[in-house]
């Protein structure tokens, strides 16, 4: 065995600085609670953007409202911190206006699946070429701990003081049913896995949905904690075939031991390509009309 090399903090910092990923981080210190799962995603996205050498000026991070949605302020890219539930339609508008931009939409479980739930099917079916990273902590963090559409049955919160009884939604299964062309899941406690999947999601040509299991250390001391998640999560079966929708749906159905990884991916025309085709047909129609 090769003896392990000692690591010096300064060297490490230098290494990180030279890697370029700090360039994607703004001066603002995240205002999240110490230990919040969201820190991982910030790192993961900075890493992925850097790896892919995407220019920060060509990157727009669009969010709704919530702790998760504070994200854009902590990145040194263009950002739009919009309204509760509206990250996806705003992101769609940005992408339609300028296909050259790399557009990442960010939101929490309430932002995405409660108030914003009507927009997801349409971004997915239209295959808008953006990446949607959803931070699922199973609670409303920013408003201080109310029940969310992904809260487990039995979870006690300020608005479910006698335990939640509503069946939680299954975001992965929903996204698969919407025709999303890239669906993956990761966990804030597995930062390397996370960074890897963020990168894949960004590379996918079409709508990519990345579900991030993330603990709210302040308002959830019992349910979606690091301890519980560490025990529950596992990697997708090594022989998982991510081109098989039925298999992906089956994997998504098991929510007690959430599997991490790429569930499903496929390629088809993006919204941008579709609009280009429409313009072509229209141009042709206009031409034949002017000839006729």
């Amino acid at each position, binding site marked *: 065995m090769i003896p392990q090399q000692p690591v010096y903090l300064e060297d490490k910092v230098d290494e990180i600085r030279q890697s370029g990923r700090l360039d994607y981080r703004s001066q*603002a210190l995240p205002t999240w609670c110490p230990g919040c799962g969201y820190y991982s995603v910030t790192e993961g996205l900075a890493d992925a953007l850097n790896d892919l050498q995407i220019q*920060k*000026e*060509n990157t*727009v*991070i*669009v969010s709704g*409202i919530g702790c998760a949605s504070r994200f*854009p*302020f902590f990145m*040194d*890219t*263009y*950002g*739009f*911190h*919009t*309204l509760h539930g*509206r990250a996806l*339609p*705003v*992101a*769609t*508008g*940005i*992408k*339609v*206006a*300028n296909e*050259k*931009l790399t557009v990442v939409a960010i939101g929490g479980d309430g932002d995405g699946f409660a108030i914003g739930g*009507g*927009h997801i*099917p*349409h971004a997915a079916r*239209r295959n808008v070429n953006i990446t949607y990273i959803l931070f699922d902590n199973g609670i409303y963090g920013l408003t201080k701990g109310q029940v969310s559409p992904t809260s487990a049955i039995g979870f006690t919160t300020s608005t479910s003081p006698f335990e939640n009884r509503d069946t939680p939604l299954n975001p992965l299964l929903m996204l698969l049913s919407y025709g999303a062309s890239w669906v993956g899941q990761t966990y804030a406690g597995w930062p390397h896995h996370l960074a890897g999947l963020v990168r894949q999601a960004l590379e996918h040509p079409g709508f990519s949905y990345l579900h991030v299991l993330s603990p709210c250390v302040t308002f959830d001391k019992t349910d979606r904690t690091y301890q519980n998640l560490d025990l529950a999560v596992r990697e997708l079966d090594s022989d998982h075939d991510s081109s098989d929708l039925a298999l992906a749906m089956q994997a998504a159905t098991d929510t007690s031991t959430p599997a991490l990884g790429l569930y499903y991916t496929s390629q088809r025309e993006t*919204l941008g390509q579709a*609009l280009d085709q*429409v*313009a072509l*047909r*229209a*141009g042709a*129609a*206009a031409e034949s009309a002017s000839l006729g």
Partner: protein
Amino acid sequence: MAYHTDIQISICGSAGDGTIAVGDIFKRAMAHVGYRVIAFDQYPAEIRGFGKCIARTRVATSRVYSMKGYSDVLVSLNDMHAIPHVGEVRNYGALIYDSAPMSAVAEGAHISGHLKPGHIPYALPMREVSELATGANRSRNFVALGFVAGLYQLPQDAFHHAIAAKFESKAAAVTKSALAAFDSGFEAGAASYQFDDVRIDAPRGRKNAHEARMMTGNGAIVQGCLDAGIETFFGYPITPATGIMERLAVEMPRRGARLVQTEDEIAAISAAIGAGYAGSRAATATSGPGLSLMTEMMGLGVMAEVPVVIFVSQRGGPSTGLPTKTEQSDLNLAVWGGHGDAGRIVLAPTNVEGCRRCAGRAFELAEQFQVPVIVLVDLYLSNRYETVFLQDENEFLPKDWKQTATPRAGYRRYELTTDGVSPRCIPGEVGGIHTATGLEHDEYGNPSDSARTHTLMTEKRYEKLQAAIKHPGINFTKRFGDSGKVEVGLLTWGSTFGEALEAMLLAQKEGIRCAATKVVMLSPFPVRPVLRFYKDCQQILVPELNYTGQFAKLLSGEIVLPVTRISHTTGAPLDVSTLLEAIRKAARKHRRQHNTT
């Protein structure tokens, strides 16, 4: 004074009778030969069934501003529907109807029994003529149209031309039978002796008569968008705004511009704001219910200072209300809608040409002031046809007319400047990185809830708009009629202005000194010129199509002076004669009070 042609023809039938179709041909033929035309059709509220359709067309040799409150000629294609409208026909006006309608009618159900003395009837066997000419009774509408043309000696080939154009994309047989029916009707008309006193003189020679185009308000909005180089549009269907999106869906892709029908109105305005943020000329269009849903996102546009244009065509309210009737009851929503102090620009054109102008200018204003701009019309204006003469098709400023920021280190997206407008960068620009947010923020865009920041930024967002009323190319108010002091002043907005102007012209003829001012920019409110007009008038009348007097209250809130409200909530435009009566009354009152003659 030379004789002016100014007549209104109404064709009334049931859905399926082809009423709107022949109305359309009539107005196009008349516009083509140089008349000024204004037309407004009434559709049934239901998709199907046999609801009432009326195609009303006013034809004149000089400019007119509204529909008349009465008809010179009424053509009935369906007596059940037409009978309630017999009273609209003036004395010595004409009533043209089928002497032997298709289905057997109950007693009293034939229109001939409802004529008033003074009405001139023309009973025409429409069905028979149609059958003879085309082998089918389906072309009664063309027979009637031909009869009108023949009776009043209108140029036959202009009609042939309009019919051929209408059926361009249909099978040749369709055009042929329409033409045959028309010609038979024409012959019958030409052979009839004209008892009524309706006169249609030849149009006065206008060099550019052939440049005249028939356009609706919605069509003009589309034209304005295209002329201004619209790049992205996101919308959701809703009457009476749908036509804007439908037309843009054909025209935009031809120009490489992009249109998406979104999942709802919230998504539409969200995407439009996203596109605006990204630097695109972006718009959406809706009606009251959709605008209600959009106000939260519009507020984000105000706070994050994003340019976007919102076309709003009002219909009867509240709630789902009267989707196929007109009303001006979304003014409060347009001007105040949404929470917080959220200043925006609201333009309300008063006629079809104004629709095009306001549509184009809206993009300029949105970019100059970095703010959502609403263009507010109503069903009456959206669907009303007018002959327009577009000479300056491309006069709108291209989107790069407004200098944005020179990107540099330490860039402050929301810099406090003397005029409140901050230099703007868009994604893709190096050195312009910032995060836009709906939270209150400092000059860099960082969230801040400090008292000082909030006070300064609130001021900034309002102060910058003050310059909007100086934008060239928009008449934010415009006065018509007598200058100087007047007895009666009409102060109004939107589609109702046409009726106000007509009533004022009639009142002037009766020797009443009066004037009318239209207010085109409703927000920010042009207090000074309105106040100036106010001071010139002994009495101010404010007619509008809503119950609570929304414009009158807006006015009183801004200029703190009393006005006389004329509110009207029938779903139909105001009647010129009602307005005229109100002017007379006001003038009498004023004269009594001042003992003048």
